[in-house]
């Protein structure tokens, strides 16, 4: 169905055909990432969206996952940025709906234009996806999906993204009502006699 599922299938096939432990060790991080992605894709399959079709949601999720990748730590996928964007488009950023609808259609066209035999962004491998996104970097659609991905990664979780505060954790931010000094590494350097 999608690249996540097919990766999982490959992994299952790989285990069954008895690939060496060395191979597994070498590829373990990538496999874990693929597994995480597969889980995410499975979640998306079951999720309900207010604006996106399932197909659109998969594409948005994949684009977001390239904007803030899960390279050794949670990224846009784990933050469930796609849900943030979906909600944004039916609430405070309703006026961006057309930008997305048209942008996603153009994205699909671009896939077949650049990669013969492919029609879906999610079916491309990571390098191909990055290559494609670089060609649409200056479009309004990309700018908004970029901004929304960042917002969805770092906004309050109640907006649908930043699930389990993974975005805040990534940058070292914590949302608390009180702190006490010292706050940062250099605080102690203050001049004598001054707080």
């Amino acid at each position, binding site marked *: 169905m999608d690249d996540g599922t097919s990766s999982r299938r490959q992994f299952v096939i790989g285990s069954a055909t008895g690939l060496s432990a060395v191979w597994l060790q070498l590829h373990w991080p990538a496999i874990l990432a693929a597994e995480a992605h597969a889980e995410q894709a499975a979640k998306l399959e079951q999720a309900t969206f207010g604006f996106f079709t399932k197909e659109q949601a998969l594409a948005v999720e994949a684009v977001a996952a*390239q*904007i*803030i*990748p899960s*390279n050794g*730590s949670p*990224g846009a996928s784990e933050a469930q940025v796609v849900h943030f964007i979906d909600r944004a488009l039916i609430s*405070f*950023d309703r006026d961006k709906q057309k930008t997305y609808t048209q942008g996603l259609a153009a994205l699909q066209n671009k896939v077949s234009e650049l990669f013969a035999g492919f029609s879906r962004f999610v079916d491309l491998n990571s390098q191909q996806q*990055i290559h494609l*996104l670089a060609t649409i*970097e200056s479009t309004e659609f990309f*700018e908004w999906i*970029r*901004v929304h*991905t*960042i*917002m969805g*990664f*770092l*906004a*309050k979780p109640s*907006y649908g993204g930043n699930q389990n505060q993974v*975005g*805040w954790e*990534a*940058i*070292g*931010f*914590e*949302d*608390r*009502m*009180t*702190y*006490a*000094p*010292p*706050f*940062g*590494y*250099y*605080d*102690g*350097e*203050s*001049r004598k006699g*001054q*707080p």
Partner: protein
Amino acid sequence: MRVRYADKTSVDFVVVGGGGAGAIVAKELATAGFQVVILEQGPYLHEKDFEHDELKFKDIWEPPGTIGQEALTNDHSLQPNTYRKTADEKAVPATFVQYGRCIGGGTVHFTGNYWRFHEIDFHERSHWGEVPGAALADWPITYQELEPYYTKAEWELGVSGLAGASPFDPPRSKPYPLPPMPVKSSGTLLDRGARKLGWHSYPAPLAILSQPYQGRAACAHCGFCEQFGCEWGAKSSSLATVIPLAEKTGRCEIRPNSYVRKVSTDVRGRVDGVIYFDARRKELFQRAKAVVVCCNGAETPRLLLMSKSNLFPQGLANSSGLVGKHFMVDIGSMCLGTFEQPLKEYKSVRVTRVMHDFYDSDPKRGFFGGGGIDARFEFYPISFALNGLPPGTPRWGAEFKNALMENFNRTLTLFTHQTCLPLESNTITLDPDVKDAWGLPALRVTYQSHPDDFRTMKFFSDRCMELLDAAGAKKKWALPIRDATSAGHLLGTCRMGDSTQHSVVDKYHRAHDVRNLFIVDGSSFVTSGRNQPTCTIQALAYRAADHMIRAAKRGDI
């Protein structure tokens, strides 16, 4: 205790605008026994309405159109601005003017930087002489005349600071009521840089409580401060300070969601009330014996220009033709640096150290103007990811994410506040074509900074780069010097003075043309100081109220 006046009751004073100035004037007048109605176009929010929500409250700079801070400020989709550089251009839709649009006004979301003017600020024209191309003028008052009111503001509102810590501080009759806020890493790094360069950083005077004060809680260092309303009531906004006192008098009615479109005058040319829209956009008339306009340096001239009549064909209080002219804004420069260790600047207040070494103008620099520098972290998580990374950082992908993770807690901003010269050609006028959601003419900005203002920006940008070097920044960069495209400190458009030809209000904020009309806000400023105006706006408000009370008591209104 809540009082409600009927529209037909001619109250003693209507105060238009319940912000940093209006709330003080209203509280002083009501305390002195007068009946007061505050008409505020924005809502009456409370601490429970504020939250840690960057999307809802923070003004995210780029890209334009991103949802922003409209929960606390003017919403340009309802109240559009238009903007042009010079009068021969056609103004285009813009989001130039930003102001607090709620009870408490800009003091609800401000940083709390609470700088007094220096003595020189009141007489730069006579001290330094004319600046070609600018309408530099002396104020009709001196620092010494205003000093007791600075002290009153600091003690009544609650300001934290350390008197005498800056060798450039003007004289003061009393220390700050509260000790300074605990220093942050941004502050110690500014200290480090300044010390190396032989300059003098010092604890920032802040209108935020470092200790409990007058029944209010001290700052809990939650970090959602500038651009947010304080959930603890620790920021000394007029909402947290004088508004409750005004209400407690039982003589001050606060009427939010009331948008004044005209100050009305009678056949004798005296003000007799104001026409306003209520929350349902129903038009109402509130009678008053006197009106105090405290809308801010952009909306005040707009209201006066909208209040034209047969007797006042150029707009109310505008026989000088100067209403709306000499518009001054918060221009400045910004430099950023990254450091080895985490600063954790997302905690506590924005600013803990400032520096006034180059506050005065100095002819040796070859231009007119001066300013101050503060150290801060000008971002929250989203705005940082969009605007705060070093130039050249990829805008997406693995490198972008890595830079974000690396720099969020290691970035420091040096932000400068400086002279903005008054120019007669920089104006607030009524747009002839564009209307707001109430059908009123949109606010039209005509603005271009004086060449010396650009030189000041460059001068301070260079000093900031030196400071970042001296503080040990691993990497540093300066944001490009550019003219204002938006402004939050709105000054100068109804300047005060002794001459009826060369100013709009007298030294007591009474309109030269209308004896029972007063104008008290940033519009009264003759010069910009160094564009940290709130402290001076509020000191002026206490002083203006004092004189209004005396005048009213002797029947001279």
